[in-house]
């Protein structure tokens, strides 16, 4: 028997063949559970994990290659690379002697926690080290997917213009650190770092900012100091 709906479209329980089921479940619940599993595993391995995000061509891989060449001198370092296609980036990382696993997402526009959990199993032990996850170059989709990282680092290059944080706010809201890369080109481009920082803090008042050049190494000492601070912070929380 179907008694239909009342004017408020309220269904009467037991009086209709239709049922209303309240479920209240997070759409990203499955990813978030897997991200929590990853995070627990990373903490158990004393591993500091960063999720690098940016638009394509901001210089994530160049930045990473320079940073890991230095960081590997003092601790184990590993890299998980995400791209739609090719293993070019993993090969660039491996050329430094640092182990890297390439994930190809095919038509996918972001990494998810399951992909990262699987890739992590294929890396050698990195106890007490640092894992960098280089996400797919995309300033939109990766913002939604927690991978189990300690935090997201968004890379913005001076060639992209000052207003990226306003155009793609979700990513800047989700990140703890903004690295302004290609700072050596700023004078040629009339790029205004102060304006970029002001825009980023409209979206995320707490975001930290460093200016770097992956090409000439400018600003990397401050980046390493920031990483050491994060490592100390994680140890205190553990």
């Amino acid at each position, binding site marked *: 028997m179907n008694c239909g709906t009342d004017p408020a479209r309220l269904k009467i329980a037991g009086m209709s063949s239709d049922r209303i089921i309240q*479920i209240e479940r997070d759409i990203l619940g499955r990813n978030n559970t897997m991200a929590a599993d990853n995070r627990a595993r990373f903490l158990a391995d004393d591993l500091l994990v960063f999720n690098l995000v940016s638009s394509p061509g901001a210089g994530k891989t160049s930045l990473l290659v320079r940073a890991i060449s230095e960081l590997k001198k003092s601790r184990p370092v590993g890299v998980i690379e995400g791209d739609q296609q090719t293993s070019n980036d993993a090969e660039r990382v491996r050329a430094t002697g640092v182990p890297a696993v390439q994930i190809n997402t095919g038509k996918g526009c972001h990494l998810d926690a399951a992909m990262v959990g699987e890739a992590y199993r294929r890396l050698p032990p990195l106890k007490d080290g640092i894992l960098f996850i280089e996400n797919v170059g995309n300033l939109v989709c990766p913002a939604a997917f927690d991978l189990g990282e300690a935090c997201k680092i968004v890379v913005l290059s001076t060639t992209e213009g000052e207003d990226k944080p306003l155009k793609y706010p979700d990513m800047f809201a989700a990140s703890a650190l903004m690295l302004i890369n290609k700072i050596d080109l700023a004078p040629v481009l009339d790029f205004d770092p102060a304006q970029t920082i002001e825009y980023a803090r409209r979206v995320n*008042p707490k975001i930290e900012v460093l200016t770097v050049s992956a090409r000439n190494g400018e600003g990397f000492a401050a980046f390493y100091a920031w990483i050491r601070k994060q490592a100390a912070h994680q140890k205190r929380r553990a």
Partner: protein
Amino acid sequence: MHEMALCQGIIEIVEEEARRRSFSKVRTVCLEIGALSHAAPEAMKFCFEAAAAQTIADGAVLEIEKLPGLAWCMACSRSVEIGQRAEPCPCCGSYQLHVTAGEEMRVKQLEVD
């Protein structure tokens, strides 16, 4: 287009609920989507139809309830509503806002047979 991945997540939730509560047809899927969330309602509707095809939710109507974006303004110490990120406090114009609600992306309820 992460909305496709989100819609596949919705279908997984619906199929799990169908196994647990034994229903065989879904008429309506009702979502709660916050104004500051990662989901664009129009893109969700577009992707849902494709994600639902040949599943238990094939042909189901997707209803979206929009939830407001709320933030605590650190400058004027009050809770304010904002329509999107990078918007200033409507009371004092400050950008010193701490988002407190509006990031939700939930399957709220299902209407099933």
